[in-house]
């Protein structure tokens, strides 16, 4: 359909380089390693961190609001006197939980729909792709607002909004990959030898398109995190008193002149995390894309 220059060439099963070669190439890209380290760190903080926060993240102290970093509060406090560091840690979990859940949902639905459309073709393809077109044509912010207004704000709503917006892109990509792959000889061989459809999809198509999809989506994590932050910034995101980086930036911005720590540290956390995921994604892509091999 639309020229999608980002579609990586499909990798037929027999052309995957040996794992060692892969790893070496990956490590050779310093940026990818940096990305990997950052992502690992964030995952660690987000999963284990909340159990070890210096203060309860929702504990208020009205006599100690907007204070700069101190012994008691390593990164300072926010509008209600809550510890910024503790909230950043919990925010990591929020971002990760949302991102992973959205990713899981969209991969499931997007890949399934994309494969069906690409493989089966015909009117199924037409119908599914029309649906995808409509979904892609909707401004993401509007979808978020509509969903939030109907369902109320909160983590679940954010996940639903982002999933609705994101899955169609995954479906499109999957479909393109599937279409190209379907024309390969070994698929014909499988069909001729009587392999049932689900098995073809599962055993032959899926493993070969999974790599580029994974690459595309690992870069997508960065964008999902940014989207969640934007929603929280607009006030459509995570419910109080749960912490989210986007929400923290939003709260901290009015005080940027007098007491910038909340906005600053929130932006830092958000920026570094997204950078990490982007670097990792780029690294994965460079590693797996045969067109860029040998340079």
């Amino acid at each position, binding site marked *: 359909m639309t020229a999608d220059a980002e579609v990586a060439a499909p990798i037929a099963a027999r052309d995957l380089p040996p794992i060692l070669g892969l790893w070496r190439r990956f490590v050779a890209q310093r940026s990818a390693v940096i990305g990997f380290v950052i992502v690992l760190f964030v995952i660690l903080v987000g999963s284990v961190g909340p159990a070890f926060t210096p203060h309860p993240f929702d504990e208020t102290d009205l006599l100690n609001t907007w204070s700069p970093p101190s012994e008691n509060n390593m990164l300072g406090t926010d509008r209600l006197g809550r510890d910024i560091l503790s909230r950043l840690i919990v925010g990591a979990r929020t971002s990760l939980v949302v991102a992973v859940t959205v990713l899981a949902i969209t991969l499931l639905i997007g890949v399934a729909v994309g494969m069906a459309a690409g493989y089966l073709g015909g009117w199924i393809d037409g119908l599914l792709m029309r649906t995808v077109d409509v979904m892609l044509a909707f401004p993401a912010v509007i979808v978020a607002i509509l969903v939030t*207004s109907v369902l*109320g704000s909160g983590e679940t709503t954010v996940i639903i909004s982002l999933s609705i917006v994101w899955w169609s892109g995954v479906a499109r990509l999957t479909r393109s990959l599937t279409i190209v792959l379907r024309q390969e000889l070994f698929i014909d061989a499988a069909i001729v030898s009587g392999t049932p459809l689900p098995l073809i999809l599962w055993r032959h198509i899926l493993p070969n398109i999974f790599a580029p999809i994974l690459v595309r989506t690992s870069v997508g994590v960065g964008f999902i995190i940014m989207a969640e932050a934007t929603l929280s910034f607009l006030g459509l995101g995570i419910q*109080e*008193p749960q912490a989210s980086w986007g929400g923290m930036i939003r709260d901290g911005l*009015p*005080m*940027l002149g*007098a007491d910038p720590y909340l906005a600053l540290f929130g932006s830092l956390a958000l920026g570094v995390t997204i950078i990490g995921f982007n670097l990792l994604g780029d690294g994965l892509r460079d590693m797996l894309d045969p067109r860029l091999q040998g340079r």
Partner: protein
Amino acid sequence: MITRSFIKGFLCTALLAFACSAAAAKTLRVNIQADPAMMDPITYSELVSGRIIENVYEAFTTKTPDGKSVPALALSWEPLQSGYGFRFHLRPGVKFHSGRTFTAKDVKYTFETLLDPTMKAGLGAEYLKNIVGADDVKSGKSKDLKGVTVVDDNTIDVAFTKLDVLFPIYPIYIMDSGIVAEQGPDWMTKVSAGTGPFKFTQWKRGVEVDLTANKDYWDGAPKIDDIRFLIVGDANTALAQYDAGELDFLDVYEPIYQRVLGDARYKDQLLSVPRAQSRYLGMNQKLYAPFKDKRVREAVSLALPRDAMIKGLYGGAAFPLNGVVTPGVGGYDPTLPPMKYDPVMAKKLMADAGYPDGKGLPPIMITCSPEYKDELAYYADQLHKVLGMPVTVNVMERATFIKAMNAGEVAFFPWGWTADYPDGMYYLAQMWYGPSPYNRARYSNPDYDHLIDEAQSTIDVQKRYDLYHQAERVLLDDWAMAPLPIEASLALRKPNVHNISNTPFGFSSFKDTTID
């Protein structure tokens, strides 16, 4: 030779420049938070347009910066001889912006238009509901409002079905009866039809609303030539524009209160007054059983430190409220004792009520619209800390929340009620009176209701205020709600702008404002 002509030239230029600057138009630039929804006094129904309309239209009376009502279009009034009602003596010699003279005919016309079912009338219609014949006009049965009689050009009688002592101070803005014939039904986006110190000139949607001075204003022409209300939605943007000299008078929005208060630069430019908004923590006894016990309600109030809240939650931009009627509003009681913070007593009361350390309390949500999310987080945490109350935060979208509140479906919520005219009755009769649709906590107290009924038929002002005081104490003794600090209304005034004030009801009209 050359020097002399040079000096002459210089002096001429200087004089010219001086004359030019003296003649340069004085424009006051103020910010408003959003587009007004409408520009006419008939459909008028919300705060933003109110700010602008106040400068263009006038009612029988007007508010002074300290909350008193003084004659505007009505010089005086007295009760009618027969039945309920008032005879108003209108100010002579007042002209509309169109040039026509203001007479009693225009008053009757305005009232009838407000009640006309085909006009999308706003708040104004509410105030007229007790006039004789109002129902007939509203239902379309009649076009003539029988209860209003034009006695002569400057005298008008208004008769009621029941006593409405506050009628003279209702903000019912009078419009020019000849304007529709002249300009058509959508006159409001084209011309100005009021008697006020400023005329409406244009409205660039999303950008600004412009007014220009009414040189024939009955109280003297304004000292400034134009007003531009610039629409700025974002708090920081507005402040930055003020700093950059693009605004002369700044309505400070809530998100940057702390920033403005903490900045020494603004100290001499700051105007801070308590809003005319009675704030409270509503506890619906019908929806949450423990609230039925007075001790629980008192414990909730005692667990909240108002001083820390003023300092922490509002950054100092708040005033204590110890009752219902707010400062600067008629009937305010300055003798009420301040709200106490006593966590020890609060814990004891809770235990006495059968919930020691909160054990046995069913979970409860505290609800409000998104602007108050931080407050909610604070209450939830504080009440849990002190009383062990299992409170969770519930942020609800604004329209949904208001609907739920009106339906009496919200059990626990902070909210406020803003007065439209400077009399405590506005709060007392609407917020806590049994049958009032705005009694959102569904509070019911027959003693209180009787006091309010009595006050509504008391014409003598001081006696009425005494009744207000009594009613307030009934509410407080019964812990009907927990009064919360009133948000301040903050404004910044550039040093070269004078005679401009910030009142509990918003800005005073700009008719006396000057710019150096």
